[in-house]
């Protein structure tokens, strides 16, 4: 695995007098992320352990049963406009943690993450408002993202059609709690994708959709990229990474193991996971 020549045009060094320098959207600078988990240690979860933890707060984190999990170690990368970046790695390698930190939902222990605008994270179990109808969720989701009422009205049909919720009858007027997990995931993605995001982080949110929806969302991801956005995609489906991403980050045990063109990284990754069997 030699350093191959660059495949993406914007990654080339600007040579001419007009510099076509790529515009960075996410910069991770030596990022460390550490989780603190309550209720490990001896007597976990008991009332005395909890009291002990409260009383002795800083003195003895370890003795009180707080365990540190070093989920991401010293990861640095720069993502540019118009890139779709796949994140791969075996389970528990820190992919979702890294995305959460990029979205600003987890504090970093060391290092810094810089972003262009506010990244939006789409997770597997991000529920919207379960007691409200799909219709309301589309409206409220749009308003919450900062769209005006007119914009929401305009885009409404587009969002519903994209989600395909109404393909099997009038489901959009039912409360979201009646949806199957796949339907809910589809509606969530459709709402979030209705806006042009600067940075969109997708954490296996497409995995529950059926094949035709995955095709639609992949083409939407390509569209978002065209509008100068950056898309991160966590997936265990190497095929969908191949179809959508041109660059892949491979995380293993919290460390960035490889960062490069999709084919190349996936080849190594497949060798790694295949060899372990």
């Amino acid at each position, binding site marked *: *695995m030699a350093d*191959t020549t*660059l*495949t*993406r045009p914007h*990654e*080339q*060094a*600007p040579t001419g007098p007009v510099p076509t320098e790529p*515009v*960075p*959207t996410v*910069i991770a*600078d030596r990022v460390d992320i550490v989780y603190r988990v309550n209720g490990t240690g001896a007597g976990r979860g008991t009332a005395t352990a909890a009291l002990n933890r409260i009383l002795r707060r800083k003195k003895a984190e370890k003795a009180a049963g707080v365990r540190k999990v070093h989920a991401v170690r010293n990861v*640095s990368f*720069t993502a540019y406009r118009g890139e779709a970046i796949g994140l791969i790695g075996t389970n528990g390698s820190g992919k979702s943690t890294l995305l959460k930190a*990029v*979205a*600003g*939902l987890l*504090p970093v222990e060391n290092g*810094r*993450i*810089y*972003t*262009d605008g506010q*990244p*939006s*994270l789409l*997770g597997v179990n*991000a*529920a*919207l*408002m379960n*007691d*409200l109808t799909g219709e*309301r969720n589309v*409206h*409220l989701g749009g*308003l*919450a*993202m*900062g769209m*005006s*009422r007119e914009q929401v009205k305009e885009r409404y049909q587009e969002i519903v059609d994209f989600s395909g919720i109404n393909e099997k009858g009038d489901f959009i007027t039912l*409360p979201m709690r009646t949806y199957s997990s796949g339907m809910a995931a589809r509606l*969530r993605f459709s709402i*979030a994708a209705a806006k042009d995001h600067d940075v969109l982080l997708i954490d296996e949110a497409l995995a529950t959709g059926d094949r035709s929806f995955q095709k639609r969302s992949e083409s939407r991801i390509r569209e978002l990229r065209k509008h100068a956005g950056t898309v991160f995609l966590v997936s265990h489906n190497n095929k969908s990474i191949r179809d959508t991403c041109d*660059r892949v980050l491979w995380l*293993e045990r919290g*460390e*960035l*193991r*490889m*960062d*490069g063109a999709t084919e*190349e*990284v996936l080849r*190594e990754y497949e060798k*790694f996971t295949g060899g372990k069997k």
Partner: protein
Amino acid sequence: MSSRALPTPPTATAHAQAPAPAPAPPTESPAQLAARHGLSVSGARPSLPEYIGQLWARRHFITAFATAKLTAQYSQAKLGQVWQVANPLLNAAVYYFIFGVLMGTSRGVPDYIPFLVTGVFVWTFTQSSIMAGTRAISGSLGLVRALHFPRAALPVSYALQQLQQLLFSMAALVVILLAFGVPVSASWLLIVPTLTLQFMFNAGVAMIMARVGAKTPDISQLMPFVLRTWMYVSGVMWSIDKVLSHQDLPHWVHLLLQCNPAAVYIDLMRFALIDSFHASQLPHHVWALALGWALLAGVGGFIYFWKAEETYGRG
């Protein structure tokens, strides 16, 4: 500089020479690069004016969310929206039975039923705003994590939902007042400033509790007890003025009971609606008190909530 295998233990390939140094600016640190392209640190809190601007931009979300929550509230019940009115009425009926009939608190209080029902409804507004505020962030984590919006929209929206709920109750209250022969008068217009100030106060406390509840979910177990205690000292079912004039309590107890914000708003509402409730029963400087509490809780709560904006949804 695209493909580089990072030399981590498992696959340390023969990879002595790092790829050619970064092309454009040779020695630029990530921080400088970020600064040059105007990137901001992820998860940083916006400045207060920025935050107010963002919140204002989401005003349609706040109202739409409150209305949607209100209509969804009883969607699983067979009687549906009837509960909007039935719920507070049943509440008042229970208190009437216990305090009015069994314990005889009604003695010496003219128009006891309007007095009690007004108290219960106005108190419920504050109580449920605070309870909803406590769960505003911790109960909407999915929404908070999926979409980006100023988080203060949630507690404010929950307080607004309770205000809408109160307006339903007020319709029932007007019927009760008229049924008990309380005349319609110009002082009913005082409902508007009273509710405005009370809403500010409630929204502020809801924001404070939202921050506390987001960090320590245990607080929602404790709040019902705190709120019940607060209710009993707020003169919801008894007349503060009456008890104070009959009993020899230390001065600071007087002051405390009279300055209690819940009691201030309840008594102002009674003064507005019930003609037999006289201005002499109100504490001194009652409007100043009402305004002061509204500003203190509203502005203070907002700033307190904003101070932790970047932490909501974490964990």
